[in-house]
Structures are given as structure tokens and as C-alpha cells.
């Protein structure tokens, strides 16, 4: 019997290694897998390359990982926020590398990684600073730049419910990057509010089929609100 449930966040991230590329779901704090990030900090893996839309908020979650100086490089679209002071300080001190990617290209590069494409021509960013040095092409009268896939060793995401096969559904706009990151990592680890019995999730409404998920970690709400 296949059971992808892992009860402890600590056990779930125990094999994240130094130098790994780790995708972390979430748009701001919506969909951010807080408990998995806390476990990753506890795990101690360093020199990480992180893929996230942002670069951390306040002092918790991704910001705490940055503050612990475990991150060598971040690939994101929107690092600067009112409460991104941890990232801001590291960046200004030259202690973190930033690869800034327009949000749609970030999403598309993750999807291309998950779907096995080699590269793609996108119109977004053509003619801007963020296209400097990139290959360009005019196709059918429109200008495009060539972008390459992003793949990761691990993806840490947050879903609403999962089952023992790894099927996932999300909640509202906390869905955001979770489903696409799940496809692009060697090992996807999902924290969920609840692990439900097989068959409880409507097969027409499963957003992430279990094939993309290695580990499902239930986080009770009481636990979560304390994080």
C-alpha cells in the first residue's frame, strides 16, 4: 500500500541537502508552507537556491530562512515589499544573489521545467533590462525572448487537503504557485490542513494528481496558528 503521509515536518525535509535548489510555494504569505520552512531552518541545509515569488515577509517563514543565512541565491519576481527588510538588508550587503524574473516568465519557466520543454519564446520582458543578454526573435511580426526552464531538487508547498496517494486540492488564492512547482521538482513535499481518506477528493476537482507529490505532511490548524 502506498502511503505518502509523513507526520513530522522535520522528517519530511530531512534529506534537503546543502546547495539544493528549493522551490517554495506562496504569494506573500498565502500558500506559504510555514511549518515546512521552519523544519528546513531546523534541518540546517545551507547554500540553498530558493525559487519563490517574493523574498520573504516580516521575520517568519522564508524571511526567517534568509535571516538564518541559508540562502545563496533567490529567483523571484517581487522581492521588495514593505516588510521585506530581511532580504533588503542581505541584498544591500551583497550577501544574497538575486535573479529577478517577470512573474509570468517565472511561472512559465517552472511549468516548462515540469513539462519537459527545452526553452520557449515569450513576449514578456522584450526590450527591457530583464531581457539583457537574452536571445530574441521576431516571430510573426512580434518580438520574443528565449527563456529556459527552472527545475528544483525539492518543492515545499502548502495545500488544503491531500490523500495518501499525494492528490492535492488547494484553498482559494493560496493555490498560486503550488500546482506548478509540484511538477518541477524531483521531490515535492506538501503540507496540508488534513489528510483525508482515499476517494474523499473529487477526481474532477483534484488540482495536483499524486504523481507530482512525494510526501504529504498534515499540519493541524492549532499547530499552524502557532507558527
Amino acid at each position, binding site marked *: 500500500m502506498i502511503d505518502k503521509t509523513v507526520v513530522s515536518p522535520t522528517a519530511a525535509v530531512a534529506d534537503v541537502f546543502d546547495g539544493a535548489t528549493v522551490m517554495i510555494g506562496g*504569494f*506573500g*504569505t*498565502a*500558500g506559504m508552507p510555514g511549518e515546512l520552512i521552519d523544519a528546513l531552518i531546523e534541518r540546517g541545509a545551507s547554500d540553498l537556491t530558493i525559487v519563490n*515569488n517574493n523574498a520573504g515577509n516580516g521575520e517568519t517563514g522564508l524571511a526567517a530562512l534568509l535571516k538564518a543565512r541559508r540562502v545563496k541565491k533567490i529567483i523571484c*519576481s*517581487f*522581492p*521588495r*515589499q514593505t516588510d521585506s527588510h530581511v*532580504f*533588503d538588508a542581505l*541584498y*544591500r550587503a551583497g550577501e544574497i544573489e*538575486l535573479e*529577478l*524574473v*517577470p*512573474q*509570468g*516568465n517565472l*511561472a*512559465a519557466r*517552472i*511549468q516548462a521545467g515540469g513539462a519537459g520543454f527545452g526553452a520557449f519564446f*515569450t*513576449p*514578456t*520582458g*522584450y*526590450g*527591457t*533590462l*530583464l531581457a539583457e543578454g537574452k536571445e530574441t526573435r521576431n516571430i510573426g511580426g512580434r*518580438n520574443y525572448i528565449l527563456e529556459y526552464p527552472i527545475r528544483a531538487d525539492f518543492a515545499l508547498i502548502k495545500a488544503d487537503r491531500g490523500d495518501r496517494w499525494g492528490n492535492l486540492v*488547494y*484553498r*482559494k*488564492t*493560496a*493555490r*498560486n*504557485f*503550488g*500546482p*506548478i512547482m509540484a511538477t518541477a521538482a524531483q521531490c515535492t513535499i506538501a503540507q496540508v490542513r488534513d489528510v483525508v481518506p482515499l476517494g474523499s477528493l473529487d477526481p474532477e476537482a483534484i*488540482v495536483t494528481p499524486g504523481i507530482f507529490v512525494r510526501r504529504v505532511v498534515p499540519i493541524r490548524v492549532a499547530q499552524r496558528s502557532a507558527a
Partner: protein
Amino acid sequence: MNRLTREQLADRVARDIPEGAYVNLGIGLPTLVANHLPRDREIFLQSENGLLGMGPAPAPGHEDPDLINAGKQPVTLLTGGAYFHHGDSFAMMRGGHLDICVLGAFQVAANGDLANWHTGASDAIPAVGGAMDLAIGAKRVWVMMDHLTRSGESKIVAHCSYPLTGIACVTRIYTDLAVIDVTPHGLQAIETVPGLGFAELERLTGIPLINAIAPVTE
């Protein structure tokens, strides 16, 4: 001359959004447009973080941290709305499916070039978000901004001095002074605030404009 307030400007933009339009409102000033949409029109607001059919802010105490807009503020979902992931959301944006997006701007050039993501200051931390996708994806890209900077310089320019967000992408500019279309022939003023004549608008703008302001007929 009466400059429009931010709310008046939002109201002015909202008036031009037709029923049935699929619209993305950028973060900052454009977000205000949502409060001014005519209540007798069904208009579909898209948010880059994965929802279509975005509704107004929730009543105090009813905020849901899992239901936010692109500016990470709490919102609601209209009956008939839908959630989707970031890949689908940006496919929707990049694929030309939005009728209108409304963006703030630092500068707009005469050819429709848009600069709205980066001041270019060497110590600035750059952040782009979805701006570049919106700039090139929507059928019509409307900019909504003050006409002049605080120091009185025109934000409508011959060529942008700030780093670009997109090339020749803006189709219309709404400012606190005027409504200006970007056309193949140049910038065409179609409306000014009461008390502001075309000549004065052109002088304030600092680059040539075409006068297409409808005469007041009342």
C-alpha cells in the same frame, strides 16, 4: 483648472469600462477603480494571483488570508468567480485574453512605451511582479497616473528615461488633467479637466499632442 482627485480619476477610468469586460487592475492607484465600477454593469476583475471574478474588500473581521489580490490585500470572490494556479493565470494574461488592464506608471512615452517598475536608481531593489506580463498581454493597456511629478515635470515624455516595462504597449493614458490616446499618429488628447485648454495641456505635457477634444456642446 481642477485636477481630478485620486477618487475622481478612478471614477473617470471606471466609466469607460464596458459591461462584460475582463479587466486587471494593477497594484497601487488602479486598485481604486474597483470601488467605482458602475453597479449596473457586470465586469470581470482578474487578479494575477489566480482569481477571476474578484469582488470588493470583505467586511472588517471577515478577511481571509487565503483570499487576497495582487497587492496582497484581502478581497472577496463574486458568485460565479473561479480560482486557478499561477501558470493558468499568466497564460490568461500573456495570451491576450484580458480586454483591459489598468496600470500605474512613472512615465509613458509618445509611442506608448511604459516605465512603471524601476526608478533606475542604483541603490533601488528592483521588483517587477506581473507588470511586464500585463503590459504586453492585455488587448488594451490603460495607464492611470498624475500628469506631472511632484516637482512639476511631465510624466508623458518623448522617450522614457526610466527603465522600460514594455515597448509601445500603452493604448490610453488617464491623468488628473486629461485623457490621451496613443495613436499611430501620436498622442491625441480627447478630454481635459474643466478649465484646462488644449494649449495649456500641451505646454504642461511638454511634447506635441494632437487636439481631438470634443467641443462642449451643452
